[in-house]
């Protein structure tokens, strides 16, 4: 059984024993509101933390310790959950008895604690050389976002659609924001971050729940402070007209992204039906878009829809020949309109339900996805009764799905088109 312990107000420990795995995975989730002021600071902080500690003075020393811990993997990064910017620090190690090494677990928890609570500090700041390196690295990563055309198209769509809402902010921050940060300023932010952010710790693996709880109570330090409550996102929006945005790129294939406001918050009883509608539309090889846009019309190799739970937006993506962008766009809009009018077959609905339920049933097969999933539930409605939720999905009918879809409104269309080359 999963065991939840409050380590301090705003700090939860979730222990998930599972005999299935040969590894132990520990994840620390530290949340902040997504704001222009903090985005770059939090992003850079996540990159600086896993490079050195008060004991391990350089990335090389830290990496050598990870090798000695039988190839344990330490990852620290920022993610966007609606209008929250979430730092995730994760450590995965092989189970002690598989590598016949007692004491491995303790060493790993101690390392995780040091990374979060005892970073390397020089004169009231982080190590300036590490900060500079990570700054350069992060800025390069931001500049390289444009190389992945699919995610660039969807990113542009979000930035355009939510231009006046925090949701448009990218989790990696901005070039200007990063440029302005120095080692001392980042450390000042860290002190605020470590004392005021809500924290969730999730641990999954083959172990005794009580022993693991005690180990974390003993070894994982909590700094005292009042922890923030992060505000719920605004999710209802009725665009007066569709916004269009187009950009030209030197590339071989056009990219299309359509942004919809779902206008169904996850608290709504209609939310499961709205989510199921997005599965019918664009998840997997028997989805409407795959069947029509790819299989019937041969317009696209990659075409899908995905929903974002916290902000209730749906993005539709397709990679299409330049000459057929308008045709594909019209076809996608037409299919969504047709579904809204009730044109969904019993088979389509049934397949979507099975797909959704099968994903639900098997999510505990993957340690990382499972703790992320449980964490996202903690953020929204608290722990969910899996069996009841499964039943609820099973009971959804055509009317429920069509009713939920009535709230969907097309907000923004982004086209990435071919760059015209001009002779000079």
């Amino acid at each position, binding site marked *: 059984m999963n065991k939840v312990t409050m380590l301090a107000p705003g700090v939860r420990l979730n222990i998930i024993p599972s*005999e*299935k*795995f*040969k*590894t132990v995975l520990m994840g620390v989730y530290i949340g902040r509101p997504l704001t222009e002021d903090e985005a770059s600071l939090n992003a850079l902080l996540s990159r600086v933390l896993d490079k050195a500690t008060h004991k391990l003075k*350089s*990335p*090389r020393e830290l*990496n*050598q310790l*990870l*090798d*000695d*811990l*039988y*190839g*344990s*993997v330490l990852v620290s990064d920022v993610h966007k959950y609606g209008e929250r910017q979430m730092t995730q620090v994760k450590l*995965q*190690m*092989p189970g002690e008895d*598989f*590598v016949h090494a007692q004491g491995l677990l303790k060493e790993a928890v101690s390392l995780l604690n040091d990374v979060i609570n005892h970073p390397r500090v020089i004169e009231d700041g982080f190590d300036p050389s590490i900060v500079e*390196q990570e700054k*350069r*690295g992060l800025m*390069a*990563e931001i*500049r*390289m976002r*444009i*190389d992945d*055309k699919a995610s660039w198209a969807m990113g542009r769509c979000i930035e355009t659609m939510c231009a006046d809402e925090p949701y448009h902010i990218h989790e990696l921050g901005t070039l200007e924001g990063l440029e302005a940060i120095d080692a001392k300023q980042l450390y000042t932010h860290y002190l605020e971050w470590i004392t005021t952010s809500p924290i969730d710790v999730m641990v999954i693996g083959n172990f005794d729940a009580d022993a693991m709880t005690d180990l974390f109570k003993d070894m994982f330090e909590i700094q005292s402070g009042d922890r923030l409550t992060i505000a719920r996102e605004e999710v209802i929006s009725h665009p007066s007209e569709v916004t269009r945005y187009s950009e030209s*790129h*030197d590339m*071989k*294939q056009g990219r299309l992204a359509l942004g919809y406001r779902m206008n169904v918050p996850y608290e709504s009883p209609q939310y499961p039906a709205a989510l199921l509608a997005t599965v019918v539309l664009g998840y*997997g*090889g*028997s989805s409407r878009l795959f*069947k029509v846009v*790819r*299989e019937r019309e*041969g317009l*696209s*190799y*990659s075409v899908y829809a995905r929903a974002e739970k916290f902000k209730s937006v749906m993005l539709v993506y397709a*990679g299409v*020949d330049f000459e057929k962008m308008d045709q594909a766009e019209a076809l996608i809009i037409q299919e969504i309109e047709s579904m809204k009018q009730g044109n969904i077959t019993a088979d389509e609905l049934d*397949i979507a339900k*099975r*797909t959704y*339920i*099968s994903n639900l*049933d*098997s999510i*505990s*097969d*993957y*340690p990382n996805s499972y703790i992320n999933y449980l964490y996202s539930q903690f953020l929204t409605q608290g722990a969910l009764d899996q069996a009841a939720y499964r039943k609820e999905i099973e009971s959804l009918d055509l009317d429920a799905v069509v009713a939920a879809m009535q709230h969907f409104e097309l907000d923004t269309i982004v086209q990435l088109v071919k760059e015209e080359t001009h002779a000079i």
Partner: protein
Amino acid sequence: MQFDRTFYSDYIRETVYYKKLNSGLDVYILPKKSFAKKYAFFATRYGGLDNHFRIEGRDDIKMPLGIAHFLEHQVFEEEDESNFERFEKIGANVNAYTSYGTTVYHFDTVDAFDDGLKYLMDMVQNTAISDSSVEKEKKVIEQEIRMYYDEPEWLLSSGLMKSLYHKHPIREDIAGSVESVQSITREAVLDCYRYFYNPDNMALFVYGDVDSEKILEQIDSYQTDAFKSNRFSPKILLPEEPYAVAQKRLMIERPIGKDQMLIGFKSKPMDHLPDRELRMVALRVANDMMFGRSSDHFDRCYSKGLINDGFDFELQAQKGYAYVLVGNETEDVEQLYAETIETLRRHLKDGFDKTAFLRMKKKLLGRMITSFNALQSIANNYTYSMMRGTDLFEQVAAYNTLTYEMLHTAVRDFYDADNHSLSALVNKK
């Protein structure tokens, strides 16, 4: 029906049951309790490299590039409904991939394994390939290929392969080119299907909470007569490949966020060596010691801002080829290139540090065990390795038997610091 033998690994603590059916089909079953999903993989030893081959008593056959991948798409074709839909209706997901040496069809499901297995075997053993399905697929695959053309990593690695190899088909893309795909015909696709989709050339893998004996009976009974009696055994023909690289460097200009580089070290093929497995393990350990996160090289280049966490290296050695790739995004292609070559030369001359060697063995053993964590990764890794003719369980053991001396031998035999090629993607100003 009895299994022929079992494979067990003490490190991984998993057992695989093996049987060669009368038809010649290899069956591997790894029963595993407590996971919700079950997996089956139906695979043929036929991939992107196998375009030139000999059938006994006939002229040598040359097929258009990309035909194995094209055939994979076509096997999904059914006349009445799509296979994606057929599987999803019972709560299963089906998919497939084509690598250089294999084509693999697989599905997973929580509670429709019996039906899914039947569908999978049915799908692969019967196909409905028509002129119109071939024409429609050309359009989809053309979009797939054009999507790759926009991926910087693809441009870089595909360019490098052409620099490393003069003739070996590894220099070509698995999907072929827009032009070669256009030249594919229904007859050619059907020929390849007959030649390579037969029991002697195929294997079936099952993973999950299943009754292995019952599943074995089912697999045996789901084979069609046509499949069982298909007895072609094509011999793959590979061109004579010169030892030296074809081209020393290739600079590609593109509008990109950051320059990228990839160095390829070409070596003699290893597929005929009896201790190939051990050599591969030795090279992986050595590469990690030279270029891995805790290496002097990584530390130096990272602090100079030449590389980031994405700095990576990989060893590939299969039918008639063997190479190591090293590369990353970088702000200075020339400097990272020079540093990398220097690191290799230094190790070839001075050897490796013994403490680092022991640490690296621990790391890679731990990583190997970790790769057997989620059932999905077990399924993918085990299938992939068996289809390449390597045994993952033996590989784990090899990390333990590897000695410091063997490491040096393997490295000196493999690496020739001069026989390399640089491929770089530089921002178009």
